[in-house]
């Protein structure tokens, strides 16, 4: 909203106050019921105030006979209302602030008169009150008339401090001059009987003031509160003038007696239209149209309602008397509930007040439309109302046209109202429940639905575990004999050798079957000799190993391979052997093994074993292939078998040597380090893998048996053919 608009609204609000004031005194003069009625009436116009009104009325009725308790109740209610107001008004927009100020102003004015009254006479007639108030009102007016900004400044100070402590805003501020009295009012025990009485009245007055304030506020809240600003904006052109009028009207009760009847009348009709519109807003636009259009004349309506009103109030009053158990009307039931709630929780926090706001709104919506006129039905006011009614009749027509526009705008405004309410609901909920966590929990059963953050956390944990596992796997791979053996193609060579062996075995069987018994007996010794060579190997193993504790691996391997006469060089075997040897020499030379972790040494040992083994297997594989290729040579297969057996022995011995050397390295480290248990386990593992390695080598060797037998068979067959 633009500043000018703000000011306009502000001004209207102020005017409204002034106008409103007269009405309340009049009401106060009337009987308790009437007072209630009045209160109702005053409050009803303001949508926001409706709830409060209902409450108050019930409270009043109940209080009527009770005396001090009434005071208390009223006082509390006042306080609560004040709080509500304060809250409603305390919400951020400058407009609201200004209104709060105006509220305070009013309140302060009223108490003055009230105090005077109480001092002068307990049974104050409505008129005197009214006049006194009138006097006070003009003051206020003059204040107001100076300029809205002036007011803002002057009262801004007050409101600034009081906005937050909204509960005090009414009780403390409004009585400004009679502040003590009012407060004592609220705390009956401390006040003297006289004061109490006056206080009672004051409280009533205050209440009214408050109500008037509420009305205004109700208007303000709905029409120009920050959330509701959309509406005024839309209604701008047409509605702003009306707002002024409506404001006047809403507060019309105050200026009633002598001051601006015409303004009042105009205001009353427009307020009616407007408040109903705004109040009913989105829910009952049609109702609004009826009240503004369908009802021919506000004055007539007022008269017609006069008759009904007392009844209604009587009902509600009685209902109140019956402890609010039987709501006389559906509409009032809400209000009663809320009032009951208020009673239950008299000392609400600021937050709780804010919670009440939505309720107020609801009640306002439900009751504002119909019960506006009821306020005018107060017996005392009947005549005046009638008088005004005539004026209203004329004014009403002009207003009617304006009303049309307003209604039109309302359709659009309704959506904004919805939005406003939505926002308010949210803010109310979230104020109590930050981020709506509880609400969400309540609305969505948590157990079933995994929430995103936990899922993400789980995924993260899983990824970490996986990464860790992969790392471990990688580590394990480095020290896993089988894997390393595979990496060095040991397994592939073994597999190929196996295939070769299987094929040879088949060939041997088929050759043996094809041979004549004669040839068979001739070849049999050779085959048996070869087989023996393979068997002997295992027996000889230990002796050979014992004989050469620290063998010259390179020369031995070379020797045995050359005996095979297959043209293969042990390059790869020697290379691996040299590498390992060098590593161990380096290790021994290095006194401090800080650079070498136990893990690394273990990895290195397993890796060396695997490499040597795979190269050994490869050597056997090649030997097998070549044996098959070189079938035409005269080289005795039995000799080759023995050479291969010796080679196997050398290889196996070397594996054992290597394991011992690596274990020695680890044991050396164990002396320096504390983690001897871990090292023991690793040493055990090395020996285990060494035996594994020997097994592979011997398996490879055994696979050569059919190959050699096949070679021997073919050789003998060939030689026989040749011969």
């Amino acid at each position, binding site marked *: 909203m633009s500043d000018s608009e703000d000011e306009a609204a502000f001004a209207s609000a102020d005017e409204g106050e002034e106008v409103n004031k007269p009405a309340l005194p009049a009401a106060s003069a009337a009987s308790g019921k009437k007072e209630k009625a009045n209160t109702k009436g005053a409050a009803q116009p303001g949508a926001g105030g409706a709830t409060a009104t209902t409450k108050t009325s019930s409270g009043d009725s109940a209080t009527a006979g009770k005396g001090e308790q009434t005071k208390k109740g009223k006082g509390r209610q006042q306080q609560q209302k004040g709080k509500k107001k304060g809250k409603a008004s305390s919400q951020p927009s400058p407009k609201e602030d200004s209104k709060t100020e105006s509220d305070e102003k009013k309140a302060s004015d009223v108490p003055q008169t009230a105090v005077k009254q109480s001092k002068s006479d307990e049974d104050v007639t409505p008129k005197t009150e009214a006049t006194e108030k009138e006097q006070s009102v003009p003051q206020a007016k003059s204040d107001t008339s100076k300029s809205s900004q002036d007011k803002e400044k002057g009262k801004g100070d007050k409101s600034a401090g009081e906005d937050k402590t909204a509960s005090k805003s009414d009780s403390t501020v409004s009585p400004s001059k009679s502040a003590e009295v009012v407060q004592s009012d609220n705390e009956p025990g401390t006040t003297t009987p006289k004061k109490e009485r006056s206080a009672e009245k004051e409280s009533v007055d205050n209440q009214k003031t408050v109500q008037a304030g509420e009305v205004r506020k109700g208007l303000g809240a709905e029409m120009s509160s920050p959330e509701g600003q959309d509406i005024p904006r839309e209604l701008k052109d047409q509605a702003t003038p009306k707002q002024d009028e409506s404001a006047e009207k809403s507060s019309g009760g105050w200026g009633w007696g002598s001051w601006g009847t015409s303004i009042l009348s105009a205001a009353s009709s427009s307020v009616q239209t407007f408040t109903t519109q705004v109040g009913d807003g989105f829910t009952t636009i049609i109702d609004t149209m009826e009240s503004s259009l369908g009802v021919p004349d506000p004055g007539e309506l007022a008269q017609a309602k006069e008759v009904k009103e007392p009844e209604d109030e009587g009902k509600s009053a009685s209902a109140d008397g019956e402890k609010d158990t039987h709501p006389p009307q559906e509409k009032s039931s809400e209000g009663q509930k809320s009032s009951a709630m208020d009673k239950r929780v008299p000392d609400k926090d600021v937050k709780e007040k804010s919670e009440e706001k939505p309720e107020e709104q609801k009640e306002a919506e439900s009751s504002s439309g119909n019960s506006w006129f009821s306020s005018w039905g107060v017996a005392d006011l009947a005549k005046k109302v009638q008088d005004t009614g005539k004026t209203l009749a004329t004014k009403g027509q002009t207003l009617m046209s304006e009303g049309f526009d307003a209604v039109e705008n309302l359709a659009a405004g309704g959506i904004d109202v919805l939005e406003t309410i939505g926002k308010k609901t949210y803010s109310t909920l979230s104020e109590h429940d930050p981020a709506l966590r509880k609400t969400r929990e309540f609305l969505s059963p948590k157990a079933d639905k995994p929430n995103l953050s936990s899922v993400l956390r789980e995924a993260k944990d899983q990824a970490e575990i996986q990464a860790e596992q*992969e790392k*471990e*796997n*990688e580590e*394990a*791979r480095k020290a*896993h*004999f*089988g*894997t390393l*053996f*595979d*990496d060095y*193609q040991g*397994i*592939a*060579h*073994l*597999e*190929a050798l*196996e*295939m*070769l062996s*299987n*094929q040879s*075995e*088949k060939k041997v069987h088929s050759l043996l079957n094809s041979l004549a018994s004669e040839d068979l007996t001739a070849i049999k010794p050779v085959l048996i000799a070869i087989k023996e060579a393979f068997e002997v190997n295992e027996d000889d193993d230990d002796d050979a190993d014992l004989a050469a504790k620290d063998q010259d691996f390179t020369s031995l391997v070379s020797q045995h391979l050359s005996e095979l006469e297959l043209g*293969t060089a042990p390059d790869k075997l020697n290379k691996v052997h040299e590498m390992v040897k060098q590593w161990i020499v380096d290790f021994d030379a290095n006194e401090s093994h800080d650079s070498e972790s136990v893990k690394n040494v273990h990895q290195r040992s397993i890796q060396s074993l695997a490499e040597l083994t795979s190269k050994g297997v490869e050597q056997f*594989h*090649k030997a097998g*292939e*070549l044996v*098959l*290729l070189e079938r035409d040579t005269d080289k005795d297969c039995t000799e080759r078998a023995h050479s291969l057996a010796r080679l196997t022995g050398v290889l196996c011995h070397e594996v054992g040597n290597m394991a011992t050397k690596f274990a020695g390295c680890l044991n050396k480290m164990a002396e320096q380090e504390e983690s001897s248990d871990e090292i023991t386990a690793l040493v055990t593992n090395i020996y*285990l893998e060494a035996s*594994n390695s020997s*097994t*592979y080598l011997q*398996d490879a060797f*055994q*696979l050569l048996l059919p190959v050699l037998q096949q070679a021997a068979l073919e050789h003998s067959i060939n030689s026989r053919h040749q011969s």
Partner: protein
Amino acid sequence: MAAGPYNYSYIFKYIIIGDMGVGKSCLLHQFTEKKFMADCPHTIGVEFGTRIIEVASQKIKLQIWDTAGQERFRAVTRSYYRGAAGALMVYDITRRSTYNHLSSWLTDARNLTNPNTVIFLIGNKCDLDAQRDVTYEEAKQFAEENGLMFLECSAKTGENVEDAFLDTAKKIYQNIQDGSLDLNAAESGVQHKPATPRNPITTDQPPNKENCSC
């Protein structure tokens, strides 16, 4: 001993066959090492190479058997065909004789492998186009007639080498997916590793138990 850690879910066995000097070992070296081996010694019997590739987000270990091309090894190398999932049949585009021998190699491949083995024809040394002795078209036609996949590659430049190996793997994987390749069959040439695999080929026991002669 604890189960060995594996980072692949399948093993495919490949066998590379073809005349001596067509560049089988160089192709393998190019594929596994991404390098060209200038003076490659004659292969004795069979050599091996491995590389883990990814097909359809499955890690597959290619176990490649690079056989000797010399005629004298033919008897030995024939025993290695068994259980190959893929066979790369290589000829030299600059030497027609290597192309002419293809039918012989193809016969071996057909007879010694299972029917689902993917046979991929590779015309190597396509970097030597000036000395070309076999046209792409006739080789392509030969491949189509025999239901082979075909590419011309260069182990020297690496051109198409990767594709030849990967396309073969994709085809094998596809055969597994559509069920035409039975993983449980002894000769499928494919080993499936469970997620937390065990050592497939006997680390601890004597290796003889597999492929008993029959």
